C-alpha cells in the first residue's frame, strides 16, 4: 500500500499571454513575453540601513519567502540588479551614495522606498536626514510602515511586478521618462 500522495493545490500558474496558437507553435508579441519574464525574475538590490532592513531579512527568509515571487536571488552588485530597495533612514550624507548606486544600475531599473524614513524622512524630521529618497532618485513604489511588516514588503514587490508587467518595452525610451530622469539631473 503506497502512501497517499500529498500535493499543493494552491500552486498558481502564470497565465499564457494573448496570442495565436496552433499545433506546436505560438505567436505573440515580443513585449508580452519579455514583460512576463522580467516580472517573474526581478533581482532585488537591498540597500538596508536600519530596522526596515531587518524586516526585509525576515521577508527573504523561509517563513515569508520572497523567492516565491521570482526574487530568489538577492544581488549585491548594482550592475546586475533590477530593483533597488531602499530600506531605512537615509541621512543627507548618504544621499549621494544612494544616487551613485542608482546610477550604477542598468536600465530597466525600478526603485522601492520601504518604510516611513525612506519614503518621507519618517520620524526623523531633522536637519541631518533626507526627507524622502525621492529627493535624489525617482521612486516607483512606496511601502508605508515603521517598519512595515514582511507582508507589506511583499505587497510592495507585487506592486512592482504589476508595474513591470504593464510597462511597455519602450517606455524607458519615452520622452516622459527622460524628462523624469532629467528632473533628477540623471542622463
Amino acid at each position, binding site marked *: 500500500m503506497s502512501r497517499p500522495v500529498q500535493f499543493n493545490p494552491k500552486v498558481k500558474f502564470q497565465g499564457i499571454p494573448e496570442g495565436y496558437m496552433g499545433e506546436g507553435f505560438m505567436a505573440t508579441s515580443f513585449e508580452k513575453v519579455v514583460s512576463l519574464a522580467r516580472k517573474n525574475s526581478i533581482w532585488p538590490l537591498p540597500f538596508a540601513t536600519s530596522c526596515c532592513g531587518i524586516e526585509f531579512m525576515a521577508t527573504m527568509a523561509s517563513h515569508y519567502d520572497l523567492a516565491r515571487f521570482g526574487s530568489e536571488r538577492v544581488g549585491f552588485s548594482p550592475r546586475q540588479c533590477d530593483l533597488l530597495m531602499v530600506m531605512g533612514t537615509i541621512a543627507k550624507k548618504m544621499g549621494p551614495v544612494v544616487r551613485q548606486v542608482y546610477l550604477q544600475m542598468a536600465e530597466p531599473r525600478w526603485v522601492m522606498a520601504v518604510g516611513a524614513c525612506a519614503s518621507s524622512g519618517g520620524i526623523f524630521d*531633522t*536637519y541631518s*536626514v533626507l526627507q524622502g529618497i525621492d529627493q535624489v532618485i525617482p521612486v516607483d513604489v512606496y511601502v508605508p510602515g515603521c517598519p512595515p511588516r514582511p507582508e507589506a514588503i511583499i505587497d510592495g514587490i507585487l506592486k512592482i511586478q504589476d508595474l513591470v508587467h504593464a510597462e511597455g518595452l519602450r517606455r524607458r525610451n519615452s520622452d516622459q521618462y527622460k524628462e523624469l530622469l532629467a528632473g533628477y539631473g540623471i542622463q
Partner: protein
Amino acid sequence: MSQLTNEQIRVALIDQFGDIFTEWSEPFGMLTFAAPKDLNLKVLQFLYDQESLSFRFMTDLQAVHYPDRTGEELCVVYHLHNLRDNVRIRFKVYTDIQKPDVFSATALFATANFMERETYDFFGVNFVGHPNLIRVLNVDEMDYFPLRKEFPLEDQTRVDKDDEMFGR
C-alpha cells in the same frame, strides 16, 4: 595608594594659577570648574604634566550653547580622566559667539582632533591652531551650525510637508 580628592585638585590649581577659576561645583561628585578661555591650554597642560594630577586622558570634548549668557554664549567643555587614580574632572571655557575662537588642544591630546572638528561642525567653535578644521559628521554643503539654539531642529529645506499635518 593615596586617593586623589577633588579638594587636592582644587588646591593645586589655585596654587598654580591664582584666583582665575569660577563656577566650582561637584555635580555627582565630579569636580567642575571654568576658566578664562585664553588660559585653556595652560590649565590643560598643567593638569597633564603635574605628576600628582596627571589628567592624561581626554574622554570627551563638546560645546554647549547658552543664548542667554550675553558675551559668553558658547561653552567648550573638556572631560579629563586620571587613569591612575580613576578620577574624572570637567573643565569649561566660555567664549563670545561673535568671535568663537578657542585654542585647539590637538597638540596636547591627539583625540581632540576629531572632537574639535565635531564641535566646530555643530556649534561653529573656531579652534585656533587645529590642523584640519572642517566638517566631519554633517554634509560639507551645510552653511550653518545646527546645534546652535537659533536654528530649529527640523529640516528647513523640505517643501513637501504640510506644517499642519506634521505638527510644526
